[in-house]
């Protein structure tokens, strides 16, 4: 067995305020982008199933928070991000991205409109510093916009699953039934005033993310209260292992895998979040217009179901049935919910039709796979 990658991570890595809590729960810890994070507690499959069927909780404080405020902030956001922020109402959020001038990805984000002239951009953990620098460089000279990196100010806790609303409702008087998907509000949570409560997440289930002060004592106390409230629903803490299998089943992109600075918006199938018709110019717009006018991308992200015995994993080659390499798996894993082996992969356009047969090279052997629709899993509509 070569267990090198699985060895427990050692200091010094960055820690969230809940680090001691995770260690007291005997979580297996790993180095995730320089952060000492829990990869699993009771077991990946149990955690994954808890989120799909009940409720699970993630510490996602490693993610970053950039706030743009001032009369010029909408103009700045419109230049920085590909989606149309002018369509957002106060209390509404949407998925978006910062692009390079080539139309490839600096990072994907969730943009929140806190009020007129006040926007919160939630960014990935591994790209925090790069993103802040990119923001300053790209819009720092625009008028009447103040840029603040508030990443260390918040502990961010994601409560996810069909029972997440029941758990959180016990901790707040805010009527959670009035918060629609991808909307947010502020309310008193676990005795704390003005906690941002967002109906967002990265699991494909209903759920909430709350933003609380990042001091250790407060963070630990709120975490305990969430677990006390959730006990009757079988609540469990969930690590990055389950976070990955959940988001993969929902075909949600992970930076460095499905999106990166060498992959453009159309290749990644994220054109629906990219408003080329919005009036404002944004970084990457003209490159994408050129690609669109030339007929679109030459390769695209597809979902694969592995048909023969084998597990496709990140970086494995995708080939034609006769062995010619045509692409690569960006993320692959067993699907805990669907009980099949699935993957996302880039292939040339001519191989993207549903049911197209390809092969994935797994430990030097070709293993048959077929193109299937994504997301692989969709939660039942209520």
């Amino acid at each position, binding site marked *: *067995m*070569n*267990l090198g990658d699985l060895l427990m991570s050692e200091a010094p890595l960055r820690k969230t305020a809940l680090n001691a809590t995770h260690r007291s729960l005997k979580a297996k810890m790993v180095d995730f982008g320089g952060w000492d994070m829990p990869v699993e507690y009771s077991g*990946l499959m149990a955690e994954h199933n808890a989120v799909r069927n009940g409720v699970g909780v993630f510490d996602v404080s490693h993610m970053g928070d950039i706030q743009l405020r001032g009369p010029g902030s909408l103009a700045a956001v419109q230049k920085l991000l590909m989606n149309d922020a002018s369509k957002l109402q106060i209390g509404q959020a949407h998925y978006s991205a910062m692009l390079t001038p080539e139309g490839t990805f600096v990072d994907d984000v969730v943009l929140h409109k806190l009020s007129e002239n006040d926007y919160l951009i939630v960014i990935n953990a591994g790209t925090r510093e790069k993103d802040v620098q990119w923001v300053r460089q790209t819009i720092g000279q625009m008028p009447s916009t103040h840029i603040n990196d508030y990443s260390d100010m918040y502990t961010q806790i994601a409560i996810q699953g069909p029972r997440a609303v029941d758990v959180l409702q016990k901790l707040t008087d805010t009527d959670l039934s009035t918060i629609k998907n991808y909307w947010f509000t502020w309310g008193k949570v676990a005795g704390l005033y003005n906690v941002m409560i967002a109906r967002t997440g990265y699991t494909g289930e209903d759920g909430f993310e709350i933003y609380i002060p990042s001091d250790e004592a407060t963070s630990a106390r709120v975490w305990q209260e969430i677990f006390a409230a959730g006990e009757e629903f079988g609540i469990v803490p969930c690590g990055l292992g389950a976070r990955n299998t959940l988001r993969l089943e929902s075909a949600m992109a992970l930076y460095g895998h499905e999106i990166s600075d060498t992959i453009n918006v159309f290749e990644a199938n994220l054109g629906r979040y990219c408003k080329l018709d919005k009036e404002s110019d944004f970084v990457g717009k003209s490159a994408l217009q050129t690609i669109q006018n030339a007929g679109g991308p030459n390769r695209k992200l597809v979902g694969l179901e592995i048909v023969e015995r084998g*597990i496709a994993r990140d970086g494995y080659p995708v080939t034609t049935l006769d062995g010619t390499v045509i692409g690569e798996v960006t993320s692959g*894993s067993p699907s805990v919910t669907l009980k099949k082996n699935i993957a996302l992969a880039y292939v040339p356009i001519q191989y993207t039709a549903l049911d197209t047969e390809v092969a994935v090279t797994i430990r030097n052997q070709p293993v048959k796979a077929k193109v299937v629709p994504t997301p692989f899993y969709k939660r039942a509509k209520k």
Partner: protein
Amino acid sequence: MAYPETYKYTKEHEWIEVDGTTGTIGITDYAQSSLGDIVFVELPKVGDKLTAHETFGSVESVKAVSDLYSPVAGTVAEINSALNDAPETINTDANSTWLVKVTLTNPADLDSLLDSAAYTKYVEEETGH
């Protein structure tokens, strides 16, 4: 974690129990715990020749693949094909879930393996548990 004293161990976390010229091979409790939920096992075929310290198959959990290294040189006599349908048995009881049985071709290979106490110490040093 208990590492049976009648077994010998590799630094790659395999165990072997020898009876005459037959060696029964599995992975240790530490290995299964590090891997997490095991979902897939790839084993050699009966008759395959194994070389000491070289890979002979793999064990996969949801999140990771790990190669299996043979503790000894030998010929595969039997494989535990029940693991194709129930790989998670390894998680439940790594010490008694065998993967392959081999007929040893060079019993001296056993001399370079770790005994239970040495393996326990090795795991403690490597990981701080």
